[in-house]
């Protein structure tokens, strides 16, 4: 079994709202998979379906080779989950909640040494009561419990939304460690730099559908590189080359975007004109992300 998660054509409606509208998702075993989309795109609903917390109206889903709804209890022994908004019991301390989450998976609970190490790294005070924790600290409680667990799959739903940048770094280290240990990670996120740094592949969802899925390199290929150049001579016919967009000439300085797969021909044309300086910016995930959304708005 090489696919940790495969979902095909998931539909889920809440009353009149169609949260999922034929969503597809494939996560290979051992990869860190980014799950991107705007608020209300259906990310959390998808994760809840994959955890068997919700039942999809239609569509097929397999998680670690099993049915997430029917085999939920068995599957949950092999899955750790961090929800986007962690709520704790007011009178249990953070440490008690971590132990509770660990024991809920059955077996002997969490590895003590690993638990202590993670509490240290996340700078969490485990003796404080649940009601006194800030959002970031509540999230740390769930993160420590998840990363200390010996599981095959980590399902993280915007886990860093309350963490400060320092803790964000600790989080990224922990995900890296999980990857090295051979665990599969499904990371839903808003933070594109985090996804770029961590994820092997990403799926972008919008309005309950997957609009794009692939490795970051593959996805970048679909987008445009920004080029700024100072030319020695006139840019002969550059503006009319296929794949060139937003061409702008100011004196000797040209700026334009080019479809990444047409870059070669454009560079030849640039070189023919004589290049004094050249900067080319590869597309960021952000541009990819924005393009998907603005496309939708204009269409």
């Amino acid at each position, binding site marked *: 079994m090489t696919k940790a998660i495969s979902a095909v054509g998931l539909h889920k409606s809440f009353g009149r709202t169609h949260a999922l509208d034929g969503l597809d998702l494939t996560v290979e075993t051992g990869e860190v998979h980014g799950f991107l989309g705007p608020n209300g795109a259906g990310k959390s609903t998808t994760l809840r379906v994959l*955890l068997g917390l919700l039942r999809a109206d239609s569509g097929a889903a397999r998680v670690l080779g099993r049915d997430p709804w029917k085999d939920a209890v068995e599957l949950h022994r092999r899955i750790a989950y961090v929800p986007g908004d962690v*709520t704790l019991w007011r009178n249990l301390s953070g440490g008690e909640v971590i132990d509770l989450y660990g024991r*809920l998976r059955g077996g002997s609970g969490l590895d003590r040494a690993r638990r202590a190490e993670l509490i240290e790294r996340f700078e969490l005070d485990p003796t404080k009561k649940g009601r006194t924790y800030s959002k970031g600290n509540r999230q740390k409680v769930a993160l420590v419990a998840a990363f200390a667990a010996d599981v095959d799959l980590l399902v993280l739903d915007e886990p860093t939304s309350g963490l400060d940048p320092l803790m964000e770094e600790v989080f990224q280290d922990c995900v890296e460690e999980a990857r090295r240990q051979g665990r599969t990670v499904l990371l839903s996120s808003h933070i594109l730099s985090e996804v770029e740094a961590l994820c092997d592949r990403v799926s972008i969802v919008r309005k309950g559908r997957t609009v794009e899925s692939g490795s970051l390199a593959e996805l970048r290929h679909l987008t445009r590189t920004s080029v700024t150049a100072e030319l020695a001579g006139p840019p002969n016919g550059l503006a009319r080359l296929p794949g060139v967009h937003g061409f702008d000439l100011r004196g000797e300085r040209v700026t334009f975007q080019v479809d990444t797969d047409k870059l070669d021909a454009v560079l030849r044309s640039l070189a023919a004109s004589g290049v004094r300086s050249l900067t080319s910016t590869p597309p960021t995930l952000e541009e990819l992300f924005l393009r998907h959304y603005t496309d939708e708005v204009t269409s």
Partner: protein
Amino acid sequence: MTANSSMRAMYGPVFGDSLGGLVAWRFGTFGAVLAAVASLIVVVRHTREEEETGRQEMLSAGAVGRRAPLTAALLAALVLNAAVALVVTAGLAGQGAAGALALGLAIGGTGMVFATAAALAAQFTESARLAKGLTAGVLGLAFALRAAGDAGTADGSSLLTRLSPIGWAEHVRAFAAPPAGAGGCCS
């Protein structure tokens, strides 16, 4: 006192003039209502409220069956009501074991009826407030039915009383003289 219909509406009819009988009269209905309120709070607290706050999500993501939360809430209510029944029985045992046990079970049993009502309400509502409100409404209705029934009849034999779960507790007739023909099983 049984002749006064407003007293009957508050406390129900008097079934016996022993100390146990009077305790059952003054405390029986009141105790049953208390057990019902405690039970509905416990059940809603561990079902709808856990889900509403989001705490349930992490529990359900553990190796916990889908029916576990409801089962656990009803078990908690059962333990609560068993404890209430035990305390009532032990406290009144000196006045007659059978009557004490009957009153204890009547009060604890009423608690379980409303624990079940709360469990149902929690399945049909989105918020804990509404679930508690609905169950409390049912409790109020049960009390009103019993009060109306008892106000109208001197011996609690009204149909209205028989329709009310609180009336059922009353009909256990703890510490009452056994009705004619019932034999000696409860004396």
